[in-house]
């Protein structure tokens, strides 16, 4: 590995009418690290105007979701050695572009908040609430979500109805609380999803599970929510 071409979608609303691609020739021996984020950081030392989000650099904060050669992923855990010589980096699709790779995530966060993503249970026991190992295991594959939005922005159902369909991430969180043996608001949570779009617009295309950098499966969580709705309907 040494020479790569990183082609980045650029857009600054102050100066540009529309986005364009800019190519950067890099030599991976010129910088430390082997991830795409390392390459972007290296480019930024030469071109300070290149704009992207990042924080932890190890795939747990969810800041640097981008579209890499057509597939959403986190720049910080995408290994350059596994990518072709030319790498096209674009912002996550479906959101308004703020600048370069930075998108406006307002809608994503508001869908997340709309599922009331917090435990609801009015009891205040003196010790911890007891939860068996099996009950707790139901949260695995759900609570690890980092809100990077790779899933939601890869979902064609979301592209078509971003205002009405909550998208895989918000629905994964909705199910994380339905699945929690300590939560007492399941009925209310399901009531809130009784709608043609919010939940049922999922068409099990499974792009979400395909791109999730944490290996989670939102389609499956959505399936569980549907099962719960059907169970209580019959």
């Amino acid at each position, binding site marked *: 590995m040494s020479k790569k071409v990183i082609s980045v979608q650029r857009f*600054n609303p102050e100066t540009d009418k529309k986005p364009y691609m800019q190519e950067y020739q890099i030599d991976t021996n010129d910088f430390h690290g082997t991830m795409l984020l390392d390459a972007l950081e290296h480019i930024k030392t030469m071109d*300070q105007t290149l*704009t992207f989000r990042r924080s932890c650099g*190890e795939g*747990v*904060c969810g800041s640097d979701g981008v579209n890499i050669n057509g597939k959403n992923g986190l720049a910080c855990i995408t290994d350059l050695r596994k990518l072709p010589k030319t790498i096209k980096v674009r912002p996550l699709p479906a959101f308004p572009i*703020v600048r370069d790779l930075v998108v406006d995530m307002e809608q994503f966060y508001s869908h997340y908040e709309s599922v009331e993503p917090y*435990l609801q249970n009015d009891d205040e026991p003196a010790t911890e609430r007891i939860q068996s190992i099996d009950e*707790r295991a139901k949260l695995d594959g759900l*609570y690890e979500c980092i809100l990077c939005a790779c899933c939601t922005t890869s979902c064609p159902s979301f592209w078509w109805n971003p205002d009405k369909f909550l998208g895989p991430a918000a629905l994964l969180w909705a199910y994380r609380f339905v699945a929690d043996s300590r939560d007492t608001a399941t009925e209310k949570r399901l009531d809130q999803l009784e709608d043609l779009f919010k939940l049922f617009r999922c068409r099990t295309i499974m792009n979400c599970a395909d791109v999730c950098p944490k290996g989670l499966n939102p389609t499956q969580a959505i399936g569980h929510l549907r099962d719960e709705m059907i169970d209580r309907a019959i």
Partner: protein
Amino acid sequence: MDLKTLKYDAIIVGGGGAGLRAALQLSKSGKKVAVVSKVFPTRSHTVAAQGGINAALGNRDGEDDWRYHMYDTVMGADFLGDQDAIEYMCQHAPATVLELEHMGMPFTRDENGKIYQRAFGGQTREYGKKNVHRTCAAADRTGHALLHTLYQQNVKAKSHFFSEWYALDLVKSETGGVSGVIVECIETGELNFLQSKAVILATGGAGQIYKTTTNAYTCTGDGLGMVLRAGFPIQDMEMWQIHPTGIYGVGSLISEGTRGEGAYLINSEGERYMERYSPNKKDLDCRDVVSRCSIQEIQEGRGCGPNKDYVLLRLDHLPKEVIEKRLPGITELARTFAGVDPEKEPIPVIPTAHYMMGGIPTNKYGQALTTDKNGNDVIIDGLYAAGECACVSVHGANRLGANSLLDIVVFGRASGMHLEEDLKDGKPFSKPSEEDIGRCLSRYERWMSSTDQSGSEPFAEVRSDMQQIMMDYFGVFRDGKGMQEAMDKLLAIRPRVQKAYLGDKSKTFNTSLVEALELDNMIEVAIATAYSALYREESRGAHSRIDFTERDDKKFLHHSLYFIDGRLEKREINMKPELVEPFELREREH
């Protein structure tokens, strides 16, 4: 310059664990409160904490006591910690963890359905006599589980966030306190003055002053820079924790919880060397001790790899189920960053800069402190600090693993509660000094008008030079001569920062501007470290000098306070816990 003023009862700077816990307290009180965070709150570095949070619940061992936890923390701190604050933290730990559970935090469970607790470094029962499992864990993603839970509770409490806004500087009042903070909206470049009755700084650590670190890009010591420029001191800045197990060449953290679950370090001869250095605690001795041993192994030629410059962390003997259920996060990190499957092969690791024990001095209510002419503590009106940016001081010269998540929640809450009371008692706005607003804006103006002329250089180059110096001279072992050289170099870097240029003047999401402003903070933190480390002519906790190898309680049993003009002052260590007898000075046991 166009500067809009907004008024709040309280402003919290930082949306990590400490800031979010303080925000929750104040939002519930019905006061007008806002959190300023340079990243969306769940991107804060708390998210990367792995191993757990300490609390003497006794779920696994039948009995445990917060007094044992306090003893371990005092010993681990090598007696530089304040015993009143340590007492407060350890006493409140069980209730803090139970509160997090009630909020919905997804802790791992034991066979009784209670919170799972694992072994961690430096933790004992009965004052050093027995082993203990005190660290409450959500697999090895405890920080992520904790941060998201606290953010969710703030969503529920409808807390107000200035998300992706950057705090530049504290505005002082006409009477020398704090009147608010100047902030920039990163998305639009708009500058605001958030006037408030009090500011709580919860800006986290500054590990980015080191070239290789476990810390996020965003850990740049912003609160410390603000405090120093406002003329207030920072404390114990020589004390940096170098974590024994960062992934070699990368820096990503491999949790101490890995060793808590039974992993151990080996050298090139395959020897489990911690058994030799620390016959009782072995791999679960304090972090400062284990890091020194690893470096000594490497220096004596028993490092691993072609350059013999790292050691190995072995966990392939652990049951598959333990690795999969309790260590899934570090397994992912090892595969991604070290290219090894820890179920089959050891992980190459190296001691790596991890945590700042020093910070803004506070009392146990989170009130920030300065000193008067006679060296007495003076409370700074309108300023609090909590979490890693604060030095309360519960970690002293060496923090115990899993005490940092505890620290942020306990003292985030304590600051929020204290300020809540002050506001209830009618705390007024103080009058901001117009002159000081000018000072706060000047830094922004300097960067935005900087030009690429001869003699100036891009700020990233200057930053890189600073990070290399810190890495070379302020690691596990230090010596006076080397540190003096480093100091000279750092003092030469300071004017370079002033002259460096910013190559992006856009108003829209200008991340280079944020990085440049962060560099102003980092260079001051680095210089503070150099001054404080040169001053402390002894070895204590993480500060280990080859020219002064012993702890010297006669000369150095006190905190060091550093002011931006290079002045150093002594500050007394608190040895007056309220409920127990103070723990008397003694040697640490291994």
